[in-house]
């Protein structure tokens, strides 16, 4: 776990805590999330019962725009987009179809898209956002935490954004002061929500 700066599992039952440390380790590894987490603190109290996971992520790559993976060549009657990385092709096509209509978007081969439009602004096309990796990443992160949490904790509250995330889960109604608990756990890591 050397990739993570801080990783603690806090639990009144020592043996149970150790099992959950192993579970968290295995799940995060399986979901390929160890490299994005900077700090993670998990608190489980089976007496209440409650499960709280709070964490901080590393710097997440910015929004991917067309200029990041393709060259845009504007001519009078058409615009040619030469793609370097196919990974973003599908979402890009979807955006272009919506923007210009399917009949104007041609794809003569795998790496080329031709837009039949007049007088396009090159800079504007280059700046079109294609994918926001943080969105799917936080969703994956929350999903992984749901996998880690004890089975049957169906009442959940989650939050993510600004490089911080948390998940609180229980089988009962969540306590009213659960946000204070979350802040408390962030403070243990030397962070604040």
């Amino acid at each position, binding site marked *: 776990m050397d990739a993570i700066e801080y990783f603690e599992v806090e639990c009144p*039952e020592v*043996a*149970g805590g150790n*099992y*959950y440390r*192993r*579970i968290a380790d*295995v*799940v995060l590894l*399986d979901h390929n999330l160890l490299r994005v987490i900077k700090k993670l603190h998990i608190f*489980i109290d*089976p*007496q209440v*019962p409650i499960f709280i996971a709070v964490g901080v992520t590393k710097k997440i790559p910015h929004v991917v725009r067309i200029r990041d993976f393709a060259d845009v060549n504007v001519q009078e009657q058409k615009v040619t987009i030469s793609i370097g990385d196919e990974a973003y092709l599908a979402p890009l096509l979807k955006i272009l179809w919506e923007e210009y209509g399917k009949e104007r978007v041609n794809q003569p081969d795998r790496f080329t898209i031709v837009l039949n439009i007049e007088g396009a602004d090159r800079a504007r096309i280059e700046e079109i956002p294609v994918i926001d990796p943080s969105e799917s990443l936080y969703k994956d992160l929350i*999903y992984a935490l*749901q*996998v880690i949490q*004890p*089975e*049957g*904790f*169906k009442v959940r509250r989650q939050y993510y954004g600004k490089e911080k995330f948390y998940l609180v889960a229980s*089988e*009962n109604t969540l306590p009213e002061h659960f946000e204070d608990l979350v802040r408390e756990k962030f403070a243990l890591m030397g962070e604040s929500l």
Partner: protein
Amino acid sequence: MNLVPVTYKGGIYRHDEIVDLIEDLGGYIIQKHVLAQEVVLQALVPREDIELIARIGKPLTGEITPSPLVGTEIAVVTMSLEIHHLPHASCDVAEYIRRFGAKTNMVGLARGFGKRIAQLNDEERDVINEHDLAVYLLGDFETCIEHKFPVLRRGIHVPIVVLGGPSTETLKKIIDPPVDGYVGNVGRFMHRTKESDELEMLDQVVTEITRVLDKKRDETAKDPPSVSPARLMDIIESQVEEIHEVLSPTPVTVQMTGIRVKLPYDTFAPVLKGITIEEGVTIGEVADVLPSRMRDYILIRVKPFSETNIMV
């Protein structure tokens, strides 16, 4: 004749000779697997003839090993089978017990998870009670096990072996009244068991199950079933044509004091009841033919000798 459960592993070439031999000696083949060039037979054979089978099997690269769980049906009760909690520890446990000859069925409870919200419904209870033994796989926290286990065992009258995250001693301490067997340190974990210490843990589970079943066997030996379930299987397979059209791996599943026949109850229960075992004794006289809660199968519970005064 004292029949003991064994597994025979050997080449497929001339394996029918072994099958014939076991049948001629008065033994029963419970299950036969053909895996490419290899054949695995799970059988009950007379104790004094093991030597003979080993000797005849030797030139056919056959190997005979005792497998204490052949002829038993075990329920592996797991608190949830949810897809995002896979892999479950119960998968490995169920698979590992199978290697020792048991027929295991997974019973994934609809609402077994959680502490306060855990429950067992009547269908689950009845299905578990149709087995020889129930293995309960519980979680990692002793607080939860202590709280929920009384609910999960309500109405279960087959022997129970409890597996859980806390140590064996802790499990013994928190479970009251006591169950038949305990194995600690087998709680919830989210990886497959591959390392040697984990396999050792599964061996412990098998040892504990064997111990509990041996105890049960000793008890049934005091008042034995009127007909051996393995013999009943043999008779049904030879007299009911339709059983050969069933696609389950074990169309007739042998238990310690009964069998499960995977044919529809309404059509076949009267047929089965009327089958003659020997000298005018029918199955209906020595056994209860009941509808199973598992699909529309038939469950035959052989009555003990003390009840029928018949031994065939």
